[in-house]
């Protein structure tokens, strides 16, 4: 069963991140890296195949709506929510329980949330 894991980060965290110097950001990234690596190793132990992307700052998001044939482009993100998407994993898991186990190992689950969405199998 394929699941999309949406990795949501708190808006405040995004904001705080913007004010960091490159060195500080680099240091924080490095500090968190072992937890990401641990989550990845767990996935390979479990035989979970996954792809994913990390997204850039939502401040640069754009929203496109087409109305009466005309494209209207506004600054994003689309939803005004307390947490904003920071990346995703698309993972082939045995079942929802395994997807939950994976979700709780993702460092962002501590600060924001991980939303698990099953895919429509074509």
């Amino acid at each position: 069963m394929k699941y999309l894991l949406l990795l949501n980060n708190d808006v405040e965290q995004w904001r705080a991140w913007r004010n960091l110097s490159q060195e500080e950001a680099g240091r924080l990234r490095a500090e968190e890296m072992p937890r990401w690596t641990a989550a990845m190793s767990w996935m390979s132990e479990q035989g979970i195949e996954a792809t994913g992307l990390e997204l850039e700052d939502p401040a640069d998001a754009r929203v496109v709506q087409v109305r009466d044939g005309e494209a209207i482009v506004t600054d994003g993100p689309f939803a005004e929510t307390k947490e904003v998407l920071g990346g995703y994993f698309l993972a082939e898991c045995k079942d929802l329980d395994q997807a939950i186990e994976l979700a709780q190992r993702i460092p962002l689950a501590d600060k924001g949330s991980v939303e698990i969405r099953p895919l429509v199998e074509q």
Partner: protein
Amino acid sequence: MKVMALIYGDEKTWEGAGDDERKAVYGRYRAFGESAGEKVVGGAELASTSAATTVRVRDGETIVTDGPFAETKEQLGGFYVLECGSLDEAVELAAQIPGAERGAVEVRAAHEEEAS
């Protein structure tokens, strides 16, 4: 650069759509996929948010709740990963995604190295 195009719409409208309407919409998505060609490098359709589960860890404890992380008027129904020369090109492509006509498509640039 890789860009994620997130497709938002009112899932109730989709749930209420008949077979013919669904076929027509899938046909339009296929047409988009064909015209975008190699620029589409990934994507998926999501089951309704009624099947969503949200996981949070607070003070070392895992909290699992049913439903999406936020209740919104329009919901994430699917996405594409696009390979584009710029965010402007991604915006142009996004305007051709059928979901942009009823709902909205959010484009988000990806960090250069892949997360996996």
